[in-house]
C-alpha cells in the first residue's frame, strides 16, 4: 500500500465517475460560461464597455466554478462505505484526499482556465489583459480547489453541508483571491502578487491533504 498508488487509483476512479455522472467533467465549464452569459445580461452593454471589469468578472466566475459541488467531494465515499474499506485496508487518507482534489481540479478548473480568454473577450476585455488572467488562473486554481477541499472534508459528515464549507473555506480563499485580483488589476505578470499567489498554491497543496485526512478520520469515528 503506497501513497502514490492510492493517489493514482483514486484519481483514475474519480475522473471516471465525474465523466459518467452526466458529464460532471464539463460542469465547471458550463457553470462558468453560464455565469459569463448571465453577467453580460445582468450588467448590460453600457457598463460592460468599461473594460477593466471584464477580467475581474472572469476571475470571480472561475473561483466560484471551482467551489461548485465541492461540498459533495467526500460525501459519497463517506456515505456509501468506501472510506471505511479504504481506511481499514490501510490506504493513506491523505493520498485519497489529494487524488480526489486533483480529480476535482481536472473536472472543474482546468477547462475553465482554458476557456477564460474566450470568456474575457466575450465580456469585452482588452487583449493585453488575457495573458495575466490565464496565468493567474493556472497558478492560483489549485489553491482554490485544495483550500475548498479542506472545507469540504471538515463539513463532510452527516451534519455538515454547504454552510460549513462556505464559512470554513471563505477565509482561506480570500488571500489567493486578493493576490489574483491584484495580478489582474496590474495587468502585468511581473508583480509581487503573482509570487504571493504561487505561495498560496504551494501552501494549499501541502496543507490540504493533511488537514483533509485528519477531518475525515474524525467523521468516520
Amino acid at each position, binding site marked *: 500500500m503506497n501513497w502514490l498508488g492510492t493517489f493514482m487509483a483514486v484519481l483514475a476512479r474519480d475522473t471516471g465517475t465525474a465523466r459518467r455522472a*452526466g*458529464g460532471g467533467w464539463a460542469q465547471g465549464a458550463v457553470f462558468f460560461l453560464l455565469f459569463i*452569459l448571465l453577467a*453580460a*445580461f445582468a450588467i448590460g*452593454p453600457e457598463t*460592460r464597455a468599461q473594460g477593466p471589469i471584464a477580467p475581474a468578472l472572469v476571475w470571480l466566475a472561475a473561483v466560484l466554478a471551482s467551489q461548485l459541488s465541492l461540498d459533495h467531494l467526500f460525501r459519497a465515499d463517506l456515505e456509501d462505505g468506501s472510506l471505511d474499506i479504504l481506511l481499514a485496508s490501510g490506504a493513506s487518507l491523505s493520498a485519497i484526499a489529494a487524488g480526489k482534489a486533483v480529480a476535482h481540479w481536472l473536472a472543474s478548473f482546468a477547462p475553465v482556465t482554458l476557456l477564460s480568454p474566450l470568456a474575457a473577450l*466575450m465580456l469585452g476585455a482588452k487583449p493585453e489583459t488575457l495573458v495575466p488572467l490565464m496565468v493567474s488562473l493556472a497558478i492560483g486554481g489549485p489553491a482554490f480547489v485544495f483550500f475548498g477541499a479542506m472545507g469540504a472534508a471538515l463539513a463532510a459528515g452527516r451534519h455538515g453541508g454547504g454552510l460549513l464549507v462556505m464559512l470554513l473555506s471563505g477565509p482561506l480563499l480570500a488571500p489567493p483571491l486578493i493576490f489574483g485580483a491584484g495580478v489582474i488589476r496590474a495587468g502585468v505578470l511581473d508583480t509581487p502578487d503573482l509570487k504571493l499567489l504561487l505561495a498560496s498554491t504551494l501552501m494549499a497543496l501541502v496543507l490540504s491533504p493533511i488537514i483533509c485526512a485528519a477531518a475525515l478520520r474524525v467523521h468516520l469515528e
Partner: protein
Amino acid sequence: MFSYFANPERFQNLAKWLVPPLAVLGLLGIVIGFGAGLFLTPADYQQGDAARMMYVHVPAAWLSSFSYAFLAVASLISFVWRHNLADAAAKAAAPLGAAFTFLALLTGALWGKPMWGAYWVWDARLTSMLVMFFLYLGYMAVRNIVPDEARAARLAAITAMVGAINLPIIKFSVDWWSSLHQPSSVFRTGGSAIDSSMLWPLLVAALGYTAFFGWLVLVQVQTELERRKIARLQRRLTGGRVSRPENPQRSVSDG
C-alpha cells in the same frame, strides 16, 4: 394523420419515393439560391457586398427555428403516444437543427463585424439564438448520456418540449427589446419589405435548405428503423443478453 404513417412498412415505402426528389430539390435549391445571390443580385446600396451573407444567413436562421419546431412536435408525438417513428425523426432532426443554428450564428457573427463593428453583441435575438443552440446541445446530451435508450428518448422529448418556449421569444425578441438586429422584413403583417430581386434567391435557397433537411431526416429515420429492427431480431435470436448467447429463454414455473 400520423397514425397512418405509424406503420413502419408504409413509412419505408413512402420514404423510398420521397428521398430522391428531395435530394435533387435540396441540392439544386441551395446551388441556385447561393449562385443567384452571389452573382445575379445587385450589391446592397447601404451594405455593399457584405449583404450577400444574407443568402446563407437568413435561410439558416429560418431553418434553425423550423427544425426546432419540427423537433418539438415530433417529441410531443413520441412522448404522448410512445411513437417509435416520431422519436426516430426527432433524433435525426436535432443535429441538423444544431448545424443550421451554428451556421446562422457563425454567418451572423461574420456579418456583424462589418455592420455593427463587433462580432458579438449581447442582444436579445442573438442571445436567444445562442440559447437555442444550447437547447439542441442539451437535447443531444440527454440522448447520449442516458444509456438506456427508451429512457433517454423520453427525457430528451421532455427537454425538447420545454425548450419550445424559446421559439416565440426568438420571434418576438426584436419587438420586445430594442435591438441592433433587423426586425422581420419578409414574414410580417403588411407584406414583404425586401426588393424582389433579392427576395427570390433568398426564397429559393430557403426552399433548398428545407428539402435538404427533409432528405437527411428521412434517410436517417430509415436507417434508424432498420437498426432497431435488427437489434430486435438479434435479441429474439439469442433470447436474451447478447453477451451470453448460451441463455435460453428465461422460463417461469409455478412452485
